[in-house]
């Protein structure tokens, strides 16, 4: 395989292979709660994060006389995203607004503030970088951080899957079953934030939400049940992002948009597959309808 001889492509592929499935999986949770734009909003708050980072850099240089390394380091960006996610999660719980409203004003507010500050500082370059990202410019260090985040996401989700899914179904029921809903919600949001903070470097704020939303949306088309929804979303995320990297190499296109368009192609394929699978689902539910009519008219009388 020709493209594997380039180190930057190996990095890009590893990053895509790590981020793709985890994002797809997390996306199921986000799309089921009307938070499809969460990643998007979070990614755009990074603009304000970058702006504040630059301000802080300037302040440190001014007051203490030494220069920080330029730009907001990855570590700080992750911290920023975690903080912003925490804040938004608190606002979600305030029950005055729907989550998407909260996200929308955090989104626009951050963009407005960030753009103002970056404009005053004359550092628009960072804006571009945050909006578009560059998967071909990441280092093995980034991949390692991504790997760590992915691992922790997998571990947390794996161990708490039942709880997370119950919360997804009905928060009240989950609370009554003694599940720490608030805590798990926060954990989920922070996981997404960490993944987004890193995916940001790969795809940029404008496209990162595709990684989370599109596989889940595609999986909804073909999954007959929740288990397969989760599995399909993970697989779709993997195929879309790894396939996107490979395609972008062979077609010599920017990688980020190619990944997104590959994911969307998967969505269209799922749309095409739907009639076939829909058929299976229909016959399934027809089966259960027969079961209903074959019992006596009051459904429960047979078992008495």
């Amino acid at each position, binding site marked *: 395989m020709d493209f594997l001889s380039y180190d930057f492509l190996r990095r890009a592929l590893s990053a895509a292979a790590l981020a793709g499935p985890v994002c797809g999986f997390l996306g199921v949770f986000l799309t089921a709660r009307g938070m499809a734009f969460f990643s998007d909003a979070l990614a755009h708050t990074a603009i304000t994060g970058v702006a504040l980072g630059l301000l802080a850099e300037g302040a440190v240089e001014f007051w203490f006389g030494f220069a920080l390394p330029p730009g907001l380091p990855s570590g700080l960006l992750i911290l920023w995203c975690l903080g912003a996610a925490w804040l938004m999660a608190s606002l979600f719980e305030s029950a005055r607004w729907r989550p998407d409203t909260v996200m929308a004003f955090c989104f626009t507010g951050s963009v407005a503030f960030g753009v103002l500050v970056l404009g005053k500082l004359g550092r628009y370059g960072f804006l571009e970088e945050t909006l578009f990202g*560059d998967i071909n*410019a990441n280092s093995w260090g980034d991949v390692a951080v991504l790997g760590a985040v992915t691992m922790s996401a997998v571990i947390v989700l794996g161990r708490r899957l039942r709880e997370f899914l119950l919360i997804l179904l009905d928060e009240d029921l989950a609370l009554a079953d003694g599940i720490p809903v608030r805590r798990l919600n926060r954990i989920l949001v922070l996981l997404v934030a960490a993944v987004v903070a890193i995916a940001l470097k790969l795809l940029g704020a404008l496209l990162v939400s595709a990684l989370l939303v599109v596989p889940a949306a595609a999986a909804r088309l073909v999954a007959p049940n929740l288990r397969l929804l989760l599995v399909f979303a993970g697989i779709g995320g993997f195929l879309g992002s790894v396939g996107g990297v490979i395609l972008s190499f062979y077609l010599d*296109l920017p990688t980020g948009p190619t990944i997104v368009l590959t994911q969307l192609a998967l969505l269209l394929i799922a749309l095409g597959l739907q009639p076939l699978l829909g058929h299976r689902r229909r016959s399934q539910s027809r089966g259960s309808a027969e079961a209903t009519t074959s019992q006596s008219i009051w459904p429960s009388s047979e078992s008495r």
Partner: protein
Amino acid sequence: MRNRYRILGAGFCVLLTWWAASSVGLADSLRPAHPFRVLTTIAPLYSFVKSIAGETVELANLLPQNADPHDYVLSPGDARRIAQADLIIRNGLGLEFFLEKALAEVDREKLLDASAGITPLPQWVSPGSPTGGSRAGEMPPNPHVWLDPVLAVVEVENIVRELCRRDTAKASNYRARGKLLVEELLRLDERYRHSLDPLPDKKMVSDHDAFAYLAERYGIQRVAILETRGHAGLSPKLVAWVLDSIVRNRVRALFSEVNHVSSELRSISRDSGVPIVLLDSMESGALRADLYERVAEANRQALVGAFQGDSSAHP
């Protein structure tokens, strides 16, 4: 049973991930012998190298025609070209922001800043803004040095020196052709001087500060620059100040570039009645050896035309 397939599928994904991640350890591909590979970032540098080295080097340029260096995003092809190049010639002074990340992985030895040794001008700061004047000193440098033919000579000399050092076998060839190019550039400078010096009242309002060095060299006063690229709109105070300055200074032309005329400049042109004259910063020009001469000549004629006032649009 079906469940087992699902688990197998998931396991397959994990395996693929592992494979992709571990393929790092694969042996580096062997590099076959190849001609000297030079990579430039923008079209004017490409045109210089093409003039100096002709077909003797394998020359490529990063920025496709029409792309804007201020907000370009690298594609995997670009990353490959960077990885394969023996010499990367960039303009420097912050122009190639899009390269910073990618270059972090590249051997610094392979890199040449063509603008080395030039004292840069700071980026334009509007005197109309309250903090403007005091901040001039700390603004980042203006990278568009090549548009001044005299500074272009410095860049050409830098390039010739580096090529000779790297590719000693063809050094004399490079030096000879470099000399021709320098002479050509000096002739251009002469023509600029000849045609622009006699014209009075040379004032410039533009929406991209690409022509700062050129203006400095030939006595064109930059009245106002509305830097709109990559900006979230302008402050109305700045626009108002620009409108006032245009009237106060009797500016006779607004300068912009083909495909980059900002809506703000159009609006100002509409409001003030001052026409827009198109120049070319070559940033996103065609990849040809004679790009520089041709475009510089076209710019000269446009400038002369604008300042001669034969464009009778002035109210």
